[in-house]
């Protein structure tokens, strides 16, 4: 059965605390931290972008399963912060992991869910026999306008998953998507920062799509919430995934291992996938994982994933999520502005 053969993540080293951002804008630091459920967020280095992080995560994924990268016949990179408007991130990744030239490659964009859609594409191509292995990536250096609520949450990170039929560490039992045209969040061409509908991003957008995709998946596979050992949801903040778990009647404790927004913020296309990687870092054979992404605009992809025995052989071959999160250096707001180049003169 098609599944995850290898996975890897990259989380930049730099962090800024919510309290430090609140200090600049006159917000009450503790209130912001509690309100969003975000203590600090990841910040990319000056020389990092969605492509460099995708390469780092992909190299980790290849190292994890030790396959010849020439056997990767498709690479799809999901991001809303591709470094070029025209010129694929996927070709940079393909070259850097050594998968060129006999493969297909493309970039994808669907706000925060293009990474899971990239995985669905790889699943379809593997299942149909078009390719041997596919590499699906979610990667983002997300933007938040200075002073906007998004500035507290917009983080950076990347996750890469090698999908195939042989040698899987976790089988993908099924996937289900739920998509509508919902204008909750967008960025027009040439604009540096996105616009959003404030509270409108919640009920009609995040919750509606996440709940319906998760319910649709369970219905399709004949499963109920208690059948899952872990649940990972898109995490625009630290609170929404907990709320959505309650709405789906999933125990809150099952969400915690994959809930990283409190420590790294919202990593957009990578958010649910880094959460899945964190679960795979500790999951036992036989564990069943529910993963549901959300992308504004809006849609959700839901997956049911069952861990195989092989995961125990591969564990420890790579730098895991906790190691990335633990290696950090704090920035003050001045350094953050310089590093993110949000000053007009930079």
């Amino acid at each position: 059965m098609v599944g995850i053969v290898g996975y890897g993540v990259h989380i930049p080293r730099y962090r800024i605390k919510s309290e430090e951002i609140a200090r600049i804008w006159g917000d009450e630091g503790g209130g912001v931290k509690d309100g969003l459920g975000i203590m600090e967020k990841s910040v990319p280095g000056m020389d990092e972008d969605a492509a460099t992080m995708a390469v780092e995560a992909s190299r980790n994924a290849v190292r994890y399963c030790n396959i010849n990268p020439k056997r990767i016949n498709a690479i799809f990179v999901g991001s809303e912060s591709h470094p070029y408007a025209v010129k694929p991130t996927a070709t940079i990744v393909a070259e850097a992991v050594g998968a060129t030239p006999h493969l297909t490659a493309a970039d994808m964009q669907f706000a925060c869910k293009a990474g899971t859609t990239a995985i669905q594409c790889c699943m379809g191509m593997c299942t149909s026999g078009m390719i041997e292995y596919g590499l699906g990536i979610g990667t983002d250096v997300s933007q938040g306008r200075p002073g906007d609520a998004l500035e507290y949450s917009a983080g950076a990170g990347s996750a890469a998953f090698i999908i195939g039929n042989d040698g899987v560490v976790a089988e993908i039992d099924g996937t289900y998507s739920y998509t509508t045209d919902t204008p909750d969040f967008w960025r027009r061409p040439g604009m540096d920062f996105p616009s959003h509908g404030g509270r409108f991003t919640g009920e009609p957008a995040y919750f509606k799509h996440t709940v319906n995709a998760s319910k649709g998946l369970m219905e399709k596979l004949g499963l109920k919430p208690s059948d899952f050992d872990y649940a990972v949801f898109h995490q625009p903040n630290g609170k929404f995934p907990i709320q959505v778990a309650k709405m789906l009647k999933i125990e809150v404790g099952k969400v915690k291992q994959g809930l990283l927004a409190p420590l790294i913020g919202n990593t957009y296309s990578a958010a649910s996938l880094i959460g899945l990687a964190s679960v795979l870092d500790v999951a036992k054979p036989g564990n069943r994982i529910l993963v549901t992404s959300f992308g504004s605009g809006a849609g959700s992809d839901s997956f049911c994933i069952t861990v195989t025995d092989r995961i125990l052989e591969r564990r420890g071959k790579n730098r895991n999520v906790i190691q990335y999160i633990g290696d950090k250096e704090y920035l003050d707001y001045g350094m953050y502005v310089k590093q993110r180049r949000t000053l007009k003169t930079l």
Partner: protein
Amino acid sequence: MSSVTMGLPMTWRRIPERYGLIGSECESCKTKYFPVRKICPKCRRRGKMRDLKFCGRGKVYSYTVIHSPPSGFELETPYTMAIVELEEGPRLTAQIVDSDITDVKIGTLVQMVFRKIQEDGKEGLIHYGFKFSVVK
């Protein structure tokens, strides 16, 4: 280093070297080279060169901290440039990132990371390639 000065074809030719640390090995005398060489200076016409992918690990052979940078690197100062001796032997010059300046010493173990090197302004090409970080 920019494509404006060195041209797109040159940038393109160097992608294997910069992205994947591809160098050369002489099959006759087993000497390894980085970057790629077409001819082994030891064996000359008896040499037979092949591509070799270096593993990306090495140690600091020497280093310096840059406070007065070339154009394009002004925002990154102070930063560390090092001569890195790769595990396989050859030495190369690279920036050390994601590491405290005080952690870089002669002999410090480092590993290759993939980073943005330089941009040709806001409309030009983005140049990617290897840098190194201290092994933790």
